[in-house]
C-alpha cells in the first residue's frame, strides 16, 4: 500500500545488523546499531564510522527495512524497534474469515486449513458464495439449495450440483464428489477414516484435498463402471497407492513391525535403514552370492502397483485427444477453459470451468509475536477470533515519537510580495515545483511518560540524482512527557486547533526555534528545495530562473532537452527511474530520555550510565524517511 503524501517511514535498525543468528543473539542485541560488514560493501573500511553513513531511501536494500510506524513493535527488553523481520510468530487460533468461527487446532489439518461449515469461495472469481434456495417464487425455504456467487453469478448449477439442505454443505459436497469409502478388498482402507485419506495433501499445501479430479475419473467410469473397488478419484487413487506400498514395504521387511504404524515412522533412522536395506541387501547377496546370510529368509522382492484397484491409473491414449477436442469445440472456447489462477486451488485434472468445484474458505490465524532475539512476547491478541483487543501489545508508537507532517501555508504577506509564491500557498504535494522552496511543519508527538530530547539530523542534500536541499530549522528540541491522560483529553480539543488555525498567519519560521509546542508534542519547520529531475533541467529553470543550485545537479548537467518518458531515449542516465521523482528525505532521529526504569541498567544498549538513583539515561536512534511529495516533471 503506498501512502499519500506526506508520509513518514521508519527504518528498522535490523537492516544494519547481521542476519539474526541464535548463537550470536547476545552480541547482536548489544550492538544493534553497528553497521554490518555486509551492507556497505564498497565502504567496508569506513565501517567504524557507521554513524556517518547516510541512509539512502532509494537504495535497493532500504525497501526491506522501511516500515510505516504502525507496523513496528518495540521490545522493552532489547530496547529496540522490531520490524516483522525481527519477530517470530505463534498461532493462537484458526478462524474462518467468513463465518468468524474458530476451528480447533486438532481439526485444522484434517479439514485442509479450510472452513468445515458453509463458507465457500467462488471457484471462478474467489468471491464468497452464499447458500440460496432455488424456489424463490413461493417464498418457501424448502427447495433444493445451491451455492451462488453474488459477484460473477456462478452457481453450483453451473457444474450440476445442488444440495438438499442448507446446512453442512461441505459434508454434502464431499459426499457427492469424493469416493464413498470402499467395502471389500482393501480392508485396511476401510478401516482408515476419511480424514486419514485426505491428510497427506493437507500437510503440504492448502489445496483442498477433498476435491477430486474430474477428467481422470471419466475413463475409468467408461471402462468398468460396475467395479466398486476401483478408486476413481485422484485422492482415492493416492490412498490406494499408499496402502499398497505400505503393504509392500511391510511384507518385504523382515522384522515384524506393525505395518499400520510404519507410515508414521518413516522419518526414524531405523526405518530408513530398513527401507534402504530392502534394496541393498538383496543386491549384496546377489553380488557375493556366498549366502552367508542364509539364515535369514530372503524377503520377497517388492513389486510395483499393477492393477487399477491398487491405485494404478493408465491414461487412455485417447484421453488427451478428447481434451483437445473439447477445447476446440464451440461450446467450450476460451471462456470455457479454466484459467491458471482458477486451477491453482483445484484438482490437477481440472481443465475446464465445468470442472471447478467450490472452494471452502481458507482459514486465517491470530498470532502472537515474540522478539526473535530475546524471545519476549511483544504482541498477544485475545484468543477469540472476533475480539480486537490485545493482552500484550508493545508497539513502537508507544515509545518512539510519532512524526506527522503538513505543509506550512505561507503567510499572505509573503505571498503578496512574491507573486510567484502565491500559488504555493497550498503546495500540491503530488507535483512539487523543482527549485521552489517549501516549508513543512514536522510534528513529533511523544507517547512515553518521560520527557524526551530529540536530535534530528539530515543530509543537506538528499542522496540520489535528484538532489533536493533540506534544512531542519531546529534540529534539537525537547518533547514533553505524555504524563496525564486527562490533560490530553482536555487539551486536545483546543491546543491543536490553535496551532492549525492561527499560527500559520502569525508566525514566520525562524532558524533555531521550535515552531510550536504542546504538552507532549513539538513542531519544527523543515525547509525543502525540491531538486530538478534529470533531463528536465532546462524546462524547470525556464520558470524559476537559474540559481546557484546548479552545482548540486552534477548528474544532470549534460542532459539536454525534456525528459523522455516514452522510453525511446537510449541513454539510461537520462531517463528518470520509477519513483525517482519522489522527494524522500532521510532523517536520523536520536532520542534521549531519563527513564526511572525498573529494568536492570545492564540490559540493552541504550542504558548507558545510571544518573544516580534509579533514573537511567537511555537513548534510541534510528533512521526515518519523510516522504514529502513528488517533484513535478
Amino acid at each position, binding site marked *: 500500500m503506498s501512502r499519500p503524501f506526506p508520509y513518514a517511514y521508519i527504518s528498522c535498525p535490523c537492516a544494519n545488523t547481521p542476519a539474526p543468528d541464535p548463537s550470536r543473539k547476545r552480541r547482536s542485541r548489544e550492538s544493534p546499531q553497528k553497521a554490518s560488514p555486509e551492507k556497505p560493501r564498497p565502504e567496508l573500511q569506513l565501517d567504524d564510522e557507521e554513524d556517518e553513513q547516510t541512509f539512502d531511501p532509494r537504495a535497493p536494500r532500504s525497501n526491506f527495512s522501511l516500515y510505516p510506524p504502525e507496523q513496528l513493535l518495540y521490545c522493552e527488553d532489547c530496547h529496540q524497534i522490531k520490524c516483522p523481520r525481527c519477530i517470530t510468530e505463534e498461532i493462537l487460533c484458526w478462524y474462518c474469515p467468513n463465518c468468524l468461527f474458530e476451528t480447533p487446532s486438532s481439526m485444522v489439518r484434517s479439514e485442509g486449513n479450510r472452513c468445515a461449515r458453509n463458507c465457500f469461495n467462488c471457484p471462478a472469481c474467489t468471491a464468497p458464495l452464499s447458500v440460496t434456495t432455488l424456489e424463490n417464487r413461493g417464498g418457501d425455504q424448502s427447495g433444493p439449495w445451491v451455492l451462488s456467487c453474488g459477484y460473477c453469478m456462478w452457481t453450483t448449477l453451473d457444474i450440476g450440483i*445442488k444440495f438438499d439442505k442448507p446446512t453442512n454443505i461441505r459434508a454434502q459436497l464431499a459426499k457427492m464428489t469424493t469416493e464413498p469409502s470402499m467395502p471389500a478388498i482393501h480392508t485396511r482402507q476401510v478401516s482408515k477414516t476419511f480424514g486419514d485419506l485426505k491428510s497427506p495433501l493437507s500437510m503440504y499445501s492448502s489445496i483442498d484435498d477433498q476435491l477430486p479430479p474430474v477428467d481422470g475419473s471419466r475413463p475409468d467410469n467408461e471402462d468398468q463402471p460396475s467395479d466398486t473397488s476401483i478408486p476413481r478419484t485422484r485422492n482415492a487413487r493416492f490412498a490406494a497407492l499408499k496402502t499398497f506400498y505400505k503393504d509392500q514395504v511391510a511384507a518385504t521387511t523382515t522384522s515384524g513391525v506393525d505395518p499400520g504404524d510404519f507410515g508414521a515412522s518413516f522419518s526414524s533412522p531405523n526405518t530408513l535403514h530398513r527401507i534402504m536395506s530392502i534394496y541393498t541387501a538383496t543386491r549384496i547377496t546377489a553380488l557375493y552370492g556366498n549366502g552367508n546370510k542364509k539364515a535369514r529368509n530372503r524377503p520377497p522382492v517388492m513389486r510395483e502397483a499393477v492393477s487399477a484397484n491398487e491405485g494404478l491409473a493408465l491414461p487412455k491414449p485417447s484421453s488427451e485427444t478428447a481434451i483437445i477436442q473439447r477445447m476446440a469445440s464451440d461450446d467450450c472456447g476460451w471462456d470455457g477453459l479454466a484459467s491458471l489462477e482458477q486451477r491453482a486451488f483445484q484438482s490437477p485434472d481440472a481443465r475446464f*470451468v*465445468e470442472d471447478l468445484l467450490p472452494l471452502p474458505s481458507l482459514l486465517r490465524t491470530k498470532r502472537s509475536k515474540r522478539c526473535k532475539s530475546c524471545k519476549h512476547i511483544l504482541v498477544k491478541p485475545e484468543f477469540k477470533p472476533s475480539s480486537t483487543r490485545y493482552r500484550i501489545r508493545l508497539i513502537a508508537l508507544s515509545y518512539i515519537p510519532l512524526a506527522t507532517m503538513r505543509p506550512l501555508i505561507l503567510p499572505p504577506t509573503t505571498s503578496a510580495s512574491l507573486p510567484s509564491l502565491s500559488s504555493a500557498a497550498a503546495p500540491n504535494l503530488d507535483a512539487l515545483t523543482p527549485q521552489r522552496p517549501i516549508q513543512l511543519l514536522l510534528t513529533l508527538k511523544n507517547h512515553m511518560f518521560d520527557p524526551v530530547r530529540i536530535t534530528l539530523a539530515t543530509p543537506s542534500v538528499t542522496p540520489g540524482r535528484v538532489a533536493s536541499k533540506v534544512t531542519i530549522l531546529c534540529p534539537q528540541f525537547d518533547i514533553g512527557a505524555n504524563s496525564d491522560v486527562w490533560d490530553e483529553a482536555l487539551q486536545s480539543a483546543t491546543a491543536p486547533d490553535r496551532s492549525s488555525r492561527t499560527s500559520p498567519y502569525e508566525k514566520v519560521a525562524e532558524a533555531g526555534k521550535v515552531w510550536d509546542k504542546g504538552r507532549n508534542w513539538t513542531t519544527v519547520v523543515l525547509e525543502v528545495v525540491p531538486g530538478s529531475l534529470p533531463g528536465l533541467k532546462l524546462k524547470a529553470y525556464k520558470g524559476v530562473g537559474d540559481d546557484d543550485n546548479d552545482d548540486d545537479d552534477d548528474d544532470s548537467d549534460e542532459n539536454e532537452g525534456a525528459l523522455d518518458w516514452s522510453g525511446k531515449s537510449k541513454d539510461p542516465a537520462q531517463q528518470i527511474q520509477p519513483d525517482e521523482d519522489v522527494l524522500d528525505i532521510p532523517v536520523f532521529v536520536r532520542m534521549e530520555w531519563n527513564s526511572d526504569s525498573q529494568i536492570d541498567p545492564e540490559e540493552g544498549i541504550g542504558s548507558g550510565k545510571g544518573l544516580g538513583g534509579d533514573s537511567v539515561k537511555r537513548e534510541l536512534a534510528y533512521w526515518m524517511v519523510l516522504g514529502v511529495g513528488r517533484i513535478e516533471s
Partner: protein
Amino acid sequence: MPQPNLLRPPPHHRPSTQSNSQPSSGSSTPKPAQPPITASSSATIAESVVFQGTFPVTIGRGTIIHPRARIYSFAGPVVIGNECIISEKCVLGTPPGEGTGTVVSTTGMAGDRNKENQRGGQTTGGGGGGEEGAIQLSSSVTIGPMASIAAGVTIHSGVVVETAAAINGNVDIGAHSKICARAEISAGAMIREWTVVWGAGKGAGLRRRVRVQGGKVNPIVQSLNGDTAAATAGDKAEEGGTLEGRIIEDARLLGMRREREALARFIGASKGRR
C-alpha cells in the same frame, strides 16, 4: 436539500420545449436543455433526477429511476425500457461539456431496437429512430449507482450494470449479461448474451465468464454415482430432469421485481404524489 429542478414525469407527450435544437450543439456547453420526456404512468422517477438534452427520452412502465441519476440526450434519444432500475448518480449519455458522444458505427443497432416490441408505446417520434448516439435500454435492466453509460450504447433485457461500471460508446450488451462493479467496457465492444464481465479496470484486467443456462450434470458426481447411486440418491435427475441454470436468472428477475415494488413505494412516497 432537493435541487431546484423538480422534474416530475409528465403524463404523456409532454410538450417539448427545445426538442428541435441542433443535436450537435451539445459540444459547446449549452444551457441545460430540457428534453421531451415520455414516461409511462407507472414509472417512478425521483425528483432529483436530472434530464438534459435535446433528443427525446422515453421511459417504460414500471421503471424506477433513483434520485440523482442524470440522463443526457444530447447525442441521441434515450429509451429506457420497461421495469428497469436506474440507480443514483449514474449517468446515461454524455454530459454537455465532455463533447457529444461521437459515434461511428451502429452495428446491429437498428435490428436490436426493432425486436424490442413493447418499448414504450408512446414514443414521441424521435425515440425509435436510428440516430447515432442513441441509448437503448431494454426491459429489466439494472444500472447500478455511479455507473456511466455513454451515448450509443445498447443494453438488452435482463442486463445488470453494477456500481461504478463504465460502458463506453457503441457498446452492445447481450441479454442477461452482467457487467460487474468498476469494470469498464471499451468502446465498440460486443458483449454476448449471458456473459459476466468481471475483474478490475478494463482491457486485460477484465475477465469473462459465460453463465450456464441449461442443465448440467456434474461429471464427478456422475462418475461416482453411476453405480453407487444410493449414497447421493435424490440429488440428481429426479423430478423430471436437472435444474437449469436459467432458473437462477428467473429468481433474480423476480427479486428485481420485488425490489422495484419496494422502491416504487419509497421513492414514490418521498415525492409525495407521483
